[in-house]
């Protein structure tokens, strides 16, 4: 995965201006990252580390994280599912359901879903599992409408980054990637000091694990600096900031 440290992402800028926006998440945000099938010599991240360095800081930071019902149903790993269920039950995770829409909106949602699906392996008539979660999430987001979709390494990201997004009802939807949120969590000091290194490790695991990635992506320190160059001015002028970690709060 390529890290972009040269262009501002309007979606991240919007989030910096107001962190209390609804952020729909893809299933891959809840499943511990595992590059062992693509990178020799690497292992899967354990759920406990994933929770400690990724999921918990994310939920501490953003009050309106959400997940589409179909994505929720796709969480088959016991620990991921249990974690999402607990967060939902505690009121920390919004489950987006298409039944919320009235008749007119539902007609619109279905038409958007059909157009988006044409660019994926999902067939609405068959309701097959391939890309279903991503397509349904994006169709919901476009209908609502919401500003973002946060995903990692999926067809949804590529759709949101492709020129056709304008034609398929997703013109105003921005993609947010994991490295952007890792930067945000670090910059806003949303983790305890002993967990700061976890963000760096997560970054390294996802973006700087192989020789080729090291050539293409900056190391954590440089990454942080370059992201600061892009976003610090926005952060300074932002009034809507999450409450940073403090030993006293």
């Amino acid at each position, binding site marked *: 995965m390529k890290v972009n440290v040269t262009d501002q992402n309007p979606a991240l800028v919007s989030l910096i201006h107001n962190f209390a926006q609804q952020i729909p998440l893809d299933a891959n945000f809840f499943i511990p990252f595992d590059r062992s099938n693509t*990178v020799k010599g690497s292992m899967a991240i354990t759920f*406990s580390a994933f929770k400690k360095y990724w999921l918990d800081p994310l939920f501490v930071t953003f009050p309106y994280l959400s997940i589409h019902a179909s994505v929720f149903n796709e969480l088959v790993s016991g620990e991921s599912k249990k974690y999402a269920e607990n967060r939902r039950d505690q009121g920390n995770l919004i489950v987006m359901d298409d039944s919320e829409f009235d008749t007119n909106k539902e007609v619109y949602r279905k038409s958007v879903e059909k157009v988006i699906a044409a660019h994926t392996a999902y067939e609405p008539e068959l309701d097959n599992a391939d890309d279903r979660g991503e397509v349904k999430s994006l169709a919901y987001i476009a209908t609502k409408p919401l500003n973002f979709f946060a995903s990692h390494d999926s067809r949804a990201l590529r759709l949101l980054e492709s020129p056709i997004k304008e034609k398929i009802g997703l013109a105003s939807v921005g993609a947010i990637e994991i490295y952007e949120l890792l930067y945000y969590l670090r910059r806003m000091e949303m983790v305890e000091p002993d967990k700061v290194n976890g963000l760096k490790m997560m970054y390294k695991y996802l973006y700087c694990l192989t020789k080729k990635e090291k050539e293409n992506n900056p190391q954590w320190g440089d990454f942080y600096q370059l992201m600061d160059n892009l976003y610090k001015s926005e952060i300074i002028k932002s009034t809507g900031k999450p409450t940073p970690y403090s030993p006293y709060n």
Partner: protein
Amino acid sequence: MLTTEDLYTIEELAKEKRRMLELGMGPLGDNLFKVLRTLGIQLIQIPFSNEENESDNPLAALYLSSKEEDGYSICYIGLNTTDYWDKQIFALAHELYHHFESSDPFVLCRGLDHSSDIRELKANRFAAEFLLPTEKLIHEIKEKNRGNHDLKGWSTNALLRLIAEVHCDYRLPFKAIVRRLLEAGAISKATLENLLKIDARDPEGIYYTLGANINLKTFQQLNSRTNLFGVEGENLGKLIENYEEGKVSLSELSDDLSLFGKSLDDYKLMEKADSEDDDLALLFEEEED
């Protein structure tokens, strides 16, 4: 039962397709796989068996075609590889008939031996004709029978040797060859029934012994179940092209390949971690809640 007109039409169709594909009239055998590639048919091999009752296997093969909006169509043949190799070849030729004649985008073929469905009978007949054209069969008989295509009076042993030769050369299953001999007027119905009583797969049986002495390697292969799983290398190459063109990510490619029992390592696409995992050790540690 097929009518004389049906038989004529199928024979002509097989001839036409052989001409179109520049196959001549000789044995096709394993070249059938090349025919599928030429026709752009994607072959998916699946070892699929009914564990409870092997004789009630729900699938011999299936044909599936999908017409896209732009008129481009994708065709697939799914082949059950728990069948014997010669039956697999026959099933492929059978599905080719559906490819040529069918407007139906999905055709599921269960056991090919006992179907009474007229379309399936036609597909069986086409398969037999495509793999072993009637005029070629008659030529083979005449070669062995001093120009005469009537095999009446031949001993069972002599008939079995002839069938085994045809079996090894044309890769048509024993029963299909026996039926073809009747259709060509070379043997009587009574002889056909006697021959069909023989267990041609029994390694201790007379037919197997004779066949193994004609061409041991080929005969054993024809009588083995390949149990292969996956698609041909060329088709998997398409998946890799999708990755190279940025249509799928490396992890999605890895998932797709795993469906066919392959990994990135099989294509030298596996990347290598550039440092020891010690740097990332905390990510791999289990912690108690």
